[in-house]
């Protein structure tokens, strides 16, 4: 589509944002290709050698040909491999939580906007209540009750974030609903669901894309925090947050690489996502859009 190419060209006018998008694409590709890129399968305990524990970057493995370019952790795991797999988990959890939150938020927000009156007030007060809780606290409580696991952490993140989407959707839908094109299709006699899905929803999406992009970053950071605190993912499948937590105790004893490299990767990932979101926010703002 011509519009998409035009959008990409305008996006790239901001060099920093273009670099951020490139970095994000690179990281996403690396995460997808982790099984082929990683020198070692960090989940396969048979491949780990406990004698190679806490080796500094660049060390050669004791028993194999492997060179640990970014060092090893306390289990003798190659940090580069662990980080690639960790990135995979972080991204998967972030996107799954965003997709879930977006779906739930869309449903709740659109119903709220269309129902109006008491239903609307009830839903929005529930959202207020949820937003009044720190997201981390809510997720902590939920995970403490549910136990660790990727599915459960996604559920906890959705529960902690749906309200942002619901509020954004409701706000946009209330504005769009009053526009003449909706009045026009009502007058033409189209059915409610048709108006909702073919006219109202597509016009609400651009604003949501921005919220969703920002929330991917927030979800990844939240998951990392939860994992760091030890309630997120199991130790056998470390995400970036858990890797940082694993190296935390060695940080002051000179073995910086166990925490610092996953930390830098997480920082780069979230920074890239936030820069992309910020650029999208500018591009999709109707007031800045050339009509």
């Amino acid at each position: 589509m011509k519009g998409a190419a035009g959008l990409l060209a305008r996006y790239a006018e901001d060099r920093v944002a273009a670099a951020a998008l490139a970095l994000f694409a690179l990281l996403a590709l690396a995460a997808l290709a982790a099984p082929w890129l990683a020198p070692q399968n960090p989940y396969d305990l048979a491949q780990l050698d406990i004698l190679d524990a806490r080796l500094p970057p660049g060390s050669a493995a004791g028993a194999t040909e492997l060179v640990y370019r970014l060092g090893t952790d306390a289990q003798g795991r190659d940090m580069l491999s662990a980080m690639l797999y960790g990135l995979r988990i972080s991204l998967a959890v972030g996107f799954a939580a965003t997709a879930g939150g977006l779906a739930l938020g869309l449903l709740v927000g659109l119903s709220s906007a269309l129902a109006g009156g008491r239903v609307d007030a009830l839903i929005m007060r529930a959202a207020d209540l949820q937003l009044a809780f720190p997201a981390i606290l809510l997720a902590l409580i939920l995970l403490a009750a549910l136990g660790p696991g990727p599915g459960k952490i996604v559920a906890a993140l959705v529960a902690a974030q749906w309200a942002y989407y619901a509020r954004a959707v409701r706000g946009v839908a209330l504005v769009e609903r009053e526009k003449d094109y909706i009045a026009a299709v009502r007058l033409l006699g189209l059915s409610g669901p048709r108006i909702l899905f073919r006219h109202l929803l597509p016009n609400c999406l651009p604003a949501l894309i921005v919220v969703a992009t920002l929330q991917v970053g927030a979800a990844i950071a939240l998951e990392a925090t939860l994992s760091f605190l030890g309630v997120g993912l199991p130790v056998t499948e470390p995400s970036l947050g858990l890797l940082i937590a694993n190296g935390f105790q060695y940080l002051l004893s000179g073995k910086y690489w166990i925490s610092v490299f996953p930390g830098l990767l997480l920082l780069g990932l979230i920074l890239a996502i936030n820069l992309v979101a910020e650029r999208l926010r500018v591009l999709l703002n109707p007031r800045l859009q050339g009509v």
Partner: protein
Amino acid sequence: MTALFELENVGMEFSVPHRSSFGPALRLAALRGVDLRVDAGEVLGLVGESGCGKSTLARIAVGLLAPSSGRRLWQGGPFPRDTRRGPALVQMVFQDAGAALNPRRPVGDQIGEAAMVRGLVTGAARAGFVSDWLTRVGLDPALAGHYPHMLSGGQRTRAVIARALAVQPRFLVCDEATAALDLSVQAQVLNLLAELRAELGLAYLFISHDLSTVRHVSERVAVMYLGRIVEQGAAAELFASPQHPYTQALLAATPSLQAGAATAAPLRGELPSPLDPPSGCAFHPRCPQAIERCRRESPAWRECGAGRLCACHLVQPEVDVIP
């Protein structure tokens, strides 16, 4: 002869939050006691200042708003519910054609969609149907795939007209349909509306603040002031000898190129707030001829000529039949 479309004693009140968020909600009377009649194939012009309730009236006429009081009639009976099948009865051409088109769908899609949902055209014939309508409103059929922002203002208005007429209404409400267009395009769109009317036997309610446009297109004219109709009658007669002081002031305010043409003093002040309408005749605070009675009593309709009605205490019945 029964009228095609009527509004009977229609009133519309909105409730507006009080300025000091704790006070009681205020009632805004946008329309009060409006009676209108449009015959089949007729063009009724509706003029009035900005904010006098024209757009509210348009939305009630097409059924987008339900009036607080009064009724909408179709051929003398209650207005039928839209069954969403077959031809529609009324459609509307919106003031801002850009806002009335979905910005994310090609215009051809939007023209064909409702006609197909209503069973007026089959899926296979839809593309031809859309090209046909685009041609009829004077647009290139190649524009079917264009998005609204790629069209000019006049093209958008034409697309909105095509979309409204594609569901075969018999009555079209044009709410300031040409107000946003420049003069040459305005003239083209007015001619198009006239052609389509002759071709399809449509009736129009043509709403505008522009007197010359209304004069040009209408057979009958109604003049509105602060939510009420103050005068109505055949266009030629009404413009030739306005009876209500408001109509007189409106016509006098129309710029004239005639040198030395006698002009009445322009109206003073603003349209009063419909939140706090004046007592008696709503026009009395601005009326140059107001008498004591105007302050106390709201004027009833008086006949002032053949088929002409005027709501003013000062108008003598049958005044213009006296030579």
